[in-house]
């Protein structure tokens, strides 16, 4: 690669829109993801209102939501299901897959490896635009007459296959499937690029063991995506056949709307296996980048090398591998052969081992550190807390025996929101607070950041800890209201509390949004290396590398691992990766 700046003419269109520059693409992913987060969280605010205050008159929302709100000012029951379906889809795929992994893989892989760009800038651009189209289609599906997909984000057939069963399984579902096909294309294009770049474009001296843990986590997440997303695509294809061409892959023995359908011999469980073959690794595709970001940020801001570097890499690998072979823990009570249940229970609980290794290593990194409570560090600590709290309840759910009583209750909702929703969202926020200077050349306002952190951290616990109790009492998820059962008529107080906490948390995010967009233009100018970090992205001459190619001169060469913080042989408490070993260090290593 040439070491001069690219000089071809740039206009607005290919600089900001159809850009092949990884930094611009990262920003495109980030901003699209943030917009989706507003929509997805807004939906949760609306259906939390329904759950906390079922009597509330929502007629005032009628202009905005039209027939979503019935004449009596109530949220329609079918639209409730549509909202949770879209909320789940949006948060898992659009915000935390595209928004988190898309942003930081794109930003950091070339910058932290010392590459001038991704292996293929063009594929990278296609990856974003496939995501963009997928977003447009999904957004459009919100406005179709009978509502968007409503069968849950897991879209189990037959419910998702038959428009007679629920309105959203008509055009809404078709658009959902189409949008997801584009989304999968985007993930695959991105993933191939990340892997190729990491394999081939590392700068001189950047051996695998010298790669920052962020890159390791992006690599493993990309591999997981490449292995599992195509399976979702095939599952979706077969579903499309069943829906549109009268095949019977998933459908059998159905009498609906006064008519016995012709389908025989299909298996709804087949779909569930295929879906969760992606669905479970998906939570790790979302989680791994967050954990990688946390490792990096915790090390930088405690001014200490990450503890157990090799064990961290090893446990990331083990978690990734195990995550592919545990999918059927979502189906313990589906009626599948109980022997399968035993096997999947064993494999599932094994994940607790590498996960606890990671946790203890985080704690050991803090030990005798010199911890700076900068904004990214606060979010990283919050992430570790969520990872512990949510991971632990996995020990209950992963145990098939206990899953008989806990499956599909609010306990599950509480568990996955803390370990996946909260921890990964905090991963996204940690990343934004840490690399904002790199993305936009400015610093975020600290005061607003502190307020944002405390509202979010306390708010999320206030929302989801109570839901554990609701779940233990047996409350089923995906219920529009709890009014029809004597069993579920308690906890109205707790449900109201949760709704208030959710609304406060939601408002807390407005503080962040203001900060995010305001600081882009009015924030304090960032110094080149604001956190005094070791990794290569901070060696570009200004905080925000403006041009293609990232470094104006030669690409820096790497001489050490990224975690030489507070090295006893150096006066400074950080030694960037491109600094050659000092004579003393050489002596010591010989």
């Amino acid at each position, binding site marked *: 690669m040439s070491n001069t700046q690219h000089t071809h003419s740039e206009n607005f269109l290919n600089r900001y829109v159809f850009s092949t520059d990884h930094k611009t693409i990262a920003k495109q992913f980030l901003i699209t993801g943030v917009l989706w987060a507003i929509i997805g969280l807004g939906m949760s605010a609306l259906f939390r209102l329904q759950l906390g205050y079922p009597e509330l008159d929502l007629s005032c929302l009628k202009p905005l939501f039209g027939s979503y709100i019935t004449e009596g000012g109530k949220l329609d029951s079918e639209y409730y299901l549509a909202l949770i379906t879209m909320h789940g889809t949006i948060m898992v795929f659009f915000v935390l897959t595209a928004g988190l992994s898309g942003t930081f893989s794109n930003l950091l892989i070339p910058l932290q490896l010392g590459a001038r760009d991704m292996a293929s800038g063009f594929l990278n651009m296609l990856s974003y635009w496939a995501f963009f189209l997928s977003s447009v289609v999904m957004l459009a599906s919100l406005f179709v007459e009978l509502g968007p997909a409503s069968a849950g984000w897991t879209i189990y057939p037959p419910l998702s296959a038959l428009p007679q069963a629920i309105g959203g399984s008509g055009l809404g579902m078709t658009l959902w499937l189409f949008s997801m096909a584009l989304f999968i294309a985007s993930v695959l294009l991105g993933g191939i690029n990340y892997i190729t770049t990491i394999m081939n474009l590392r700068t001189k001296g950047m051996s695998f063991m010298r790669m920052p843990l962020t890159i390791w986590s992006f690599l493993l997440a990309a591999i997981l995506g490449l292995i599992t997303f195509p399976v979702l695509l095939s599952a979706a294809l077969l579903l499309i056949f069943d829906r549109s061409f009268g095949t019977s892959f998933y459908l059998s*023995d159905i009498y609906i709307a006064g008519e016995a359908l012709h389908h025989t011999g299909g298996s709804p469980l087949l779909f569930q296996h295929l879906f969760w073959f992606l669905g479970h690794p998906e939570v790790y595709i979302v989680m791994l980048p967050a954990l990688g970001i946390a490792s990096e940020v915790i090390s930088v801001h405690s001014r200490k090398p990450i503890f157990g570097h090799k064990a961290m890499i090893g446990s990331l690998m083990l978690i990734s591998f195990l995550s592919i072979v545990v999918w059927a823990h979502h189906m313990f009570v589906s009626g599948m052969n109980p022997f399968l249940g035993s096997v999947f229970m064993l494999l599932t609980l094994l994940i607790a081992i590498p996960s606890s290794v990671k946790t203890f290593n985080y704690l050991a990194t*803090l030990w005798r550190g010199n911890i700076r409570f900068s904004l990214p560090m606060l979010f990283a600590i919050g992430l570790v807390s969520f990872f512990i709290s949510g991971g632990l309840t996995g020990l209950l759910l992963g*145990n098939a025996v206990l899953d008989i009583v806990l499956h599909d209750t609010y306990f599950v909702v509480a568990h996955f929101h803390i370990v996946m929703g909260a921890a990964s969202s905090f991963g996204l926020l940690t990343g934004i607070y840490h690399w904002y200077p790199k993305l936009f050349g400015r610093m975020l306002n600290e005061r607003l950041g502190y307020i944002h952190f405390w509202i979010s951290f306390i708010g999320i616990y206030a929302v989801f800890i109570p839901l554990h109790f609701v779940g233990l*009492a047996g409350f089923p998820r995906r219920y529009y209201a709890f009014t029809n059962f*004597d069993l579920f008529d308690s906890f109205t107080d707790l449900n109201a509390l949760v709704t208030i906490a959710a609304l406060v948390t939601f408002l807390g995010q407005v503080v962040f949004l203001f900060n995010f967009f305001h600081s882009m233009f009015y924030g304090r100018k960032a110094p080149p290396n604001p956190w005094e970090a070791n990794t290569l992205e901070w060696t570009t001459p200004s905080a925000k590398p403006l041009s293609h190619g990232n470094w104006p001169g030669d690409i820096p060469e790497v001489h050490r691992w990224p975690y030489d913080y507070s090295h006893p042989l150096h006066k400074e408490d950080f030694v960037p990766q491109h600094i050659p070993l000092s004579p003393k260090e050489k002596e010591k290593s010989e």
Partner: protein
Amino acid sequence: MTSLLLLIASLIVFAIAAYLFKIGNLLDTLSQKPTEGKDPKTNHQQAVLFLILTVVGFVLFFSYAYQAAEKYILPQAAVHLSSISSLFWITMTLILVVFVLTHVVLFFFAYKYRYRPGRKAYFHHDNHKLEILWTLVPAVVLSVLIFKGLSYWQEITAPAPENAEVVELSAYQFAWASRYPGKDGKLGRADFKLIDSENRTGVDFRRDENAQDDFMPRVMHLPKGKPVKIRIRALDVIHSFYAPHFGAQTYAIPGMPTVFWFTPSKTTNEMREELKDPDFNYEIACNKICGRGHFSMRYILVVDEPEEYEEWYTQQSPWIQKHPEYLSPKSREEPLSQKSNNL
């Protein structure tokens, strides 16, 4: 009590907010000088906030968990729930211990080792003994949980005993129907192609003699102390048979009948006395998203003493008595003309 806790909680949130805004002011005056986490004062405040939060959080959590126990620990009415709940509490105790310990360590370290200018962190990044220790300890603890889990799982999912009562439970949008085998003890065949608005589960009364004494009560009854095997069917989309008091949950899947068996251990009357609630009823709910009425698929289940159950059983009259037209082929569309491979 709950409202008191809520009051305390909101006071604390309020106090924290006030504290924060003080920090806010402070930062405002400092805003000329970037802190980047290097201002000892802010650091101290953040670390203290974490400590306060840990203490307050634990107090709130445990006091609520203690005083609301009655609300979230359901009364149990099936034999196998005793092993489920013993494993549950073993795991829960472990979880709570680890939860508290790790959080205390996390926030204590954060406080203790907060940034002070001029100090350097301890350059230390490996300790193989420690790492092996914290790999092995979780592994050992887990193997206990796995072992217990596997053995209970095998017991609960083993084939139902021969002498079990058999009941068929069918789910459809948005209701349940139960069917009992009648005097012959054999459920008649059913086929989805025979379903109509009367014969809601598609029983083949005409061609299967075993079907002719089957009865379909409005309310499901089960005997106490005897294993019961529920054959679960779905007629349109996936539903799920979910009976929290009995620790029972299994999907109902169109085209793939499933089974759950258990032994009821308390009659409805006993439970009414125990809860001092004369209106109490066991309820079955649907627990798999199935459409607009998913939240309303309620079905009542009554557990009787075995003698009462026998009496109830003999009083039921076969479904066909009220619908004799289902015995003669000409009365309705000829099902035999349909190709049905289940027959």
